[in-house]
């Protein structure tokens, strides 16, 4: 996966600390490190999976990648242009080239907007014309009926809404789509559909995919590269098969052990035994 071509996203020693609310008049407010010295590159066409438990800094990191937040130190470059610390007016190119699919299909679509306007929003923001054909084309691409454009988000199921989010993300023909836990709010039965849709569309539109999840099995399904985050640090990164079959870091081993597999399920392994396996893989470190 390491082609000589320049990376599309390049993250260098990025830190992000959040300041807590003041608790004392005399002591300075304490800080919470959310991301601690993370560096990695994402190549064009790569499907980059970011895994970690909740609170590991994944969400902060993608906010930084999408320049919705800026790092305390370190730099992020998109297609060779620095995006960290830049004012909004200089991020127009990024807003067009990189789109985000959010986690919550209920919350990420404005309930007062028609689906057509939701999908066209990135185009409108980029001051691009929005022919009605384009909306229909996008709806078809994500497997929604043509008349979906006239309806409101609450008239759709969770899976359909996530399709709307994906159609919206594709509207500006971006080169990178960042998906923040796109299936974790969905029924298990719908997950596979959405994952396959994302994978197919990534092929069809030759997208670079940044896929964030707390679920290793989901990431394995879609991504060719996996980066594991733990307490704001990148603890392991490599090709999916390597990381999965031969995890180096103790935390990764625990993650892999926590994935329920069919074989283990058939062998009658209960959830309790699974939990025991997880602690056994990492006896010295017991997280809160």
């Amino acid at each position, binding site marked *: 996966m390491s082609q000589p071509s320049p990376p599309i996203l390049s993250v260098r020693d990025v830190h992000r600390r959040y300041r807590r609310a003041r608790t004392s008049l005399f002591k300075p407010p304490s800080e919470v490190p959310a991301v601690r010295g993370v560096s990695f590159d994402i190549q064009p066409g790569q499907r980059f999976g970011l895994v970690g438990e909740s609170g590991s800094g994944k969400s902060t990191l993608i906010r930084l990648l999408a320049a919705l937040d800026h790092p305390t130190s370190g730099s992020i470059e998109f297609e060779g242009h620095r995006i960290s610390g830049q004012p909004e007016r200089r991020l127009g190119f990024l807003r067009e080239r990189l789109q*985000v699919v959010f986690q919550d299909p*209920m919350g990420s679509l404005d309930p007062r907007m028609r689906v057509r306007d939701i999908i066209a929003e990135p185009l409108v923001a980029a001051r691009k014309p929005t022919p009605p054909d384009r909306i229909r084309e996008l709806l078809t691409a994500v497997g929604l009926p043509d008349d979906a454009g006239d309806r409101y988000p609450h008239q759709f199921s969770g899976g359909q809404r996530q399709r709307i*989010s994906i159609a919206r993300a594709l509207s500006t023909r971006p080169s990178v789509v960042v998906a923040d836990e796109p299936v974790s709010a969905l029924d298990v039965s719908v997950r596979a559909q959405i994952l396959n849709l994302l994978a197919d569309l990534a092929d069809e539109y030759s997208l670079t995919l940044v896929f964030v999840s707390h679920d290793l099995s989901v990431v394995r399904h879609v991504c060719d590269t996996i980066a594991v985050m733990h307490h704001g640090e990148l603890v392991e990164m490599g090709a999916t098969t390597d990381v999965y079959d031969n995890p180096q870091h103790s935390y990764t081993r625990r993650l892999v052990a926590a994935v329920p597999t069919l074989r283990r399920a058939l062998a009658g392994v209960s959830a309790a035994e699974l939990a025991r396996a997880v602690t056994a893989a990492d006896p010295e470190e017991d997280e809160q």
Partner: protein
Amino acid sequence: MSEQVNVVSVPVAEPAAARRGSRLNPSLIVGGSIVALIIGAALLSFVWTPYDPTRIDAAARLTSYSGDHWLGTDKFGRDVFSQLLVGARTTLFVGIVAVGIAAVIGTPLGIFAGMGSRWAGEIVMRGNDLLLAFPALLMAIMFAAVYGPSTLTAMAAIGIATVPSFARLARSGTLGVMNTEYVLAARAAGRTRRAIAVRHVLPNISGLVIVQSSVAFAIAILAEAALSFLGFGTRPPTPSWGRMLQESQELLHSAPRLALWPGIAIALAVLGFNLLGDGLRDRFDPRLEVRR
């Protein structure tokens, strides 16, 4: 909060009739009917009144209820019923303009305070507090002293005094909307602040603003009546419920009906708009809908 609207209004298989039923609550029906009655009276007064409400008829002074004058006449022989009808017009006019001023100034101010930098928000809200601390009636009297008492000064004073309530409400609504994921998504899509304010924030707080308008309308009616009663509002001979009350004051013992009818009209109007506001709140507020 608006995404909660969403959660609530995604019934799996709730029959349409049941949902419609929950929307038409008693407050909405009663309040809406009273408001419709007042609007009807005001509209009617444009095309028909039993008598010219300003016509002085010395021969028919202080007559009681009769076929000629349904609600009798006042000390100048003017027809009380006709005055009430035209008074509804004045009342609504004052309410609409005052609430309009308040909503048009207060809502954008609140959105700005909720979306802008912390400092900008603080400055707006502290200015708001200052205005809120100033008694509305005192401001109206001051306006009347400076510009002369008229319906216009009363409307302006009531409107400006009501700005803070809209600004505060709009700000709290805006803060809620700004925390939603769809605003984050709009930012990620490259929407400007102004576009987010107009396309996302405003539509999602419009329910709150409508409810507040109805409640503010009731307060404006009361304020106008009080100002007219004190002689700082509508000038004679334009009929106004507040002034009708004032003129009846000296005859309270001999002809209490002259105070009774404008009093009922004012009370009914205030009740109507308050009930309408309550009803609309139930309809717009998702948290109350869940409880039902």
